[in-house]
């Protein structure tokens, strides 16, 4: 059992808090999900449980006890003896956390040797084999002799999980262990973690930004905002009657696979260390905020002993009636090629000697969104790149825009074709030139495609920024002054300025936090209806498909395994692959979201 009381972590030297007043309890065999956006301090809190400070952070004060032992009071030697033995850690990215120079066996054995687990090498070898079985990996000599780079991402993460359970610890900290894994692999890893914690009565802290993931594995959930825990409660209670306004915001921004509610985003961003307001830190974004909220951080309160919330107005939040805007949105049923803007017929393409796409047929109508879904390596991005003319390999088959055949390479296409198809890239951090101001970035498509004078250009740029809910004054700033969500909006504005017929969005929300993701999806969905563009939305995240798309194309290994209307495909999938994908996708069952 783990107890944390009044934990605070500060930036070295300045005393600026990264996290403070953090308190929670985890009992053996239970998993606590610690949920928060990037910059909320969740990972700092997670490593603090092992008394591990990241460069530049120092532990300020508080109390951490594991099975009655006060971790805070331990000297360096005692700490070393409990790390990996009493409390262990599963890292976010195993490809970075496993030592590339050492064999798997060495890295597994050393933790047993260090902590004196087992009395002989044979005994330890046996434990390693047992660990491998528990995380469903081969335990043979050949496998253990491998180096980390010889394993897949999922296998690496299993090794890390096995390592964490090696010495049968009382407590385990998992730091977003499934980020970057495919849904299928993620589902396997989650199941393994859950089984092992139950089996050995381990208390586990599961850190994540993804509510849907913890909904399936955690017994309790703690929600963190700007360095503080604002609400804690049993998973079901929290989803049923969230009592903090921020938790409610989080819940409605989780894409819902079942399609019972529409996504709604939240503008603004969480304040970082050093910029946090007095009182409740969510107050500036909260519509229920009163003067009390701005003056003082609310005390620990809540409906019952297990469900705690730190909000002055939680009673009002609970009592707030269900939002009537959550009506099922309009979806049109026609998926025929008639009126299609983009038609893809029997497209095959390759990278070097490897065929990556084997004959794809699909089409997108104007004012409609087609979701292109698949796991990594399915060929979905390659197909999107073929359509936009930036794929460098061989392409066979036919790609038509408004009925006429498109050239393979965008450089050979006439200006009108290039203008008609606009691409929005995955990472807004990489797709905007850091040396150019927003005005310079946005004026490029205008100069390329239209004859306009300076003033006309400026008017259009301001209109475009406002269309994506950004302020016109941002024209003079540079990308590094913007948050990830704002940058992605700028990228969308740039695409819109070309007045395209087709908008290709390549995993545009995968590097963004849930609240921001929700607001971007909301924006895109509105743009499709308002402007009548045809959108191709490439994603690996099925719940987003339900919120945004009209038709869906599921791809696996370069083949189209299922293609049709979103509701039909998701509610009644025909292909085995789609069924598995749906089964492995974590879902939040929100009974009655207000």
């Amino acid at each position: 059992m783990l107890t944390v009381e009044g934990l605070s972590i500060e930036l070295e030297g300045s005393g600026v808090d990264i996290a403070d007043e953090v308190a929670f309890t985890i009992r053996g065999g239970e998993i606590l999900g610690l949920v928060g956006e990037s910059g909320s301090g969740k990972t700092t809190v997670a490593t603090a449980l092992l008394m591990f400070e990241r460069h530049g952070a120092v532990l300020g004060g508080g109390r951490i006890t594991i099975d009655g032992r006060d971790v805070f009071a331990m000297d360096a030697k005692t700490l070393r003896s409990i790390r990996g033995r009493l409390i262990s850690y599963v890292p976010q990215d195993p490809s970075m956390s496993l030592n590339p120079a050492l064999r798997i066996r060495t890295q597994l054995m050393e933790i047993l040797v260090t902590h004196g687990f087992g009395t002989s090498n044979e005994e330890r070898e046996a434990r390693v084999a047992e660990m491998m079985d528990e995380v469903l990996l081969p335990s043979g000599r050949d496998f253990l002799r491998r180096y980390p780079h010889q394993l897949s991402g999922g296998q690496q993460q299993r090794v890390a999980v096995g390592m964490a359970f090696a010495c049968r610890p009382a407590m385990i900290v998992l730091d977003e262990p499934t980020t970057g894994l495919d849904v299928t692999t993620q589902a396997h890893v989650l199941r393994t973690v859950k089984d092992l914690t139950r089996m050995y009565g381990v208390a586990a802290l599961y850190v994540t930004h993804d509510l849907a993931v913890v909904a399936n594995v955690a017994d309790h959930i703690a929600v963190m905002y700007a360095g503080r825990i604002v609400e804690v409660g049993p998973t079901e209670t929290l989803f049923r009657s969230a009592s903090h306004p921020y938790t409610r915001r989080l819940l409605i921004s989780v894409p819902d696979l079942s399609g019972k509610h529409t996504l709604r985003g939240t503008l603004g961003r969480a304040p970082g260390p050093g910029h946090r307001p007095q009182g409740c830190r969510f107050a500036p974004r909260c519509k229920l905020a009163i003067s009390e909220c701005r003056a003082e951080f609310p005390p620990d309160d809540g409906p019952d002993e297990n469900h705690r919330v730190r909000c002055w107005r939680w009673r009002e939040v609970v009592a707030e009636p269900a939002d009537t805007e959550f009506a099922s949105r309009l979806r049109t049923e026609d998926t025929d090629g008639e009126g299609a803007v983009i038609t893809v017929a029997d497209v095959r393409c390759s990278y070097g000697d490897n065929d990556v796409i084997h004959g794809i047929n699909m089409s997108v109508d104007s004012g409609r969104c087609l979701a292109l879904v698949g796991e990594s390596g399915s060929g979905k991005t390659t197909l999107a790149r073929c359509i936009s003319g930036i794929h460098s390999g061989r392409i066979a088959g036919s790609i038509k825009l408004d009925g006429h055949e498109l050239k393979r390479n965008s450089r050979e296409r006439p200006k009108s074709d290039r203008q008609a198809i606009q691409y929005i890239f995955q990472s807004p951090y990489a797709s905007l030139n850091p040396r150019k101001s927003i005005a310079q970035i946005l004026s490029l498509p205008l100069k390329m495609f239209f004859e306009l004078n300076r003033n006309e250009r400026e008017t259009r740029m301001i209109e475009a920024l406002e269309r994506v809910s950004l302020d016109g004054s941002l024209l003079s700033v540079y990308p590094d002054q913007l948050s990830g969500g704002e940058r992605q909006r700028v990228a969308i504005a740039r695409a819109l300025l070309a007045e395209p017929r087709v908008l290709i969005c390549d995993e545009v929300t995968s590097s963004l936090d849930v609240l921001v993701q929700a607001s971007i999806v909301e924006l895109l969905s509105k743009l499709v209806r308002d402007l009548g563009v045809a959108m191709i939305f490439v994603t690996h995240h099925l719940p987003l498909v339900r919120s945004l798309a009209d038709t869906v194309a599921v791809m696996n290994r370069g083949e189209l395994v299922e293609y049709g209307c979103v509701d039909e495909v998701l509610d009644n999938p025909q292909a085995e692959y789609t069924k598995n994908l749906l089964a492995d996708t974590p879902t939040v069952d929100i009974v009655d979201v207000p």
Partner: protein
Amino acid sequence: MHLARLILQRLALGIGTLFLVSVLIFLATQALPGNAARAILGNTATPEKVAVLSRQLGLDKPVARQYAIWVSHFVSGNLGRSFVGMDQPVSQVIGQPLYNSTVLVVLAALVSVPLSIGLGTYAALRRDGRLDRAVTTSTVALAALPEFVIGILVIIILSTEVLHLFPPIARPNPSVPVYRQLDELVLPVLTLTLAVFPYITRMMRAYTIEILESEYISMARLKGLPERIVIWRHAVPNAIVPAVQGTAMQLAWLAGGIVAVEYVFAYPGIGSALISAITERDIPTIQAITLILASVYVLLNLAADIITILVTPRLRTGLR
């Protein structure tokens, strides 16, 4: 199988590089002004004599053929004959200087490489400590000075103006083994060491810090491993590659950088030999020395590449 192919590939690349270098050297010496035969015979020679000597030296043959002859001789160990000093074989002209320089470079390497690797790693482990700060500032200062300036400062401080510990010029007696007259070599070795160690030290420090901040080192600490194992098992194997690469680069630099330092100390090494060969237009000697220096450069880098392949699992095993 994969490993053998990778190493053979590197070897082939190294040989290819050497070939290109030899072509460049040959063409560069061809471009030197003046006729070699005239250079040998002096300004008073008659045109007939020059023509006869040109034929003897093979200067009347096409350039490509001259190159082929030169290379084939070079490969078989025949470095040709010097234009000056009574038609001596080049191997004799450069034999002793080559030996002298090798002694100097090897001594400098033996001192500077372990010192700088140790110092760089230690500074990284005690990052922001007093020693680290001393190391970072002093290495910046030293790196900013050209090696001949360091040499002159060393002479001023240890030999002439301040202290009188060692002789200001290094002219070991060729008939006595070098290891019995080491005091002659102290200053040149010190100068070369001071010129080389800032680079390796700073590089080792930077790479070690990067390794220590990597997630796998954090992970090793979070597993509760003793610091000794964290450093020696987890950090050091990953630091071998930068250490080897940096060392090879600096040793290769030493092979060329020695020229100026030898000049400062009037040391009878390959640098001095090269300078006198240039003033005397002794083309075969210039070619031989530059090609030897280039080969050292290529071989050191080749060795570093092969060691890198051998100690990096990802390169050694290929993918899966």
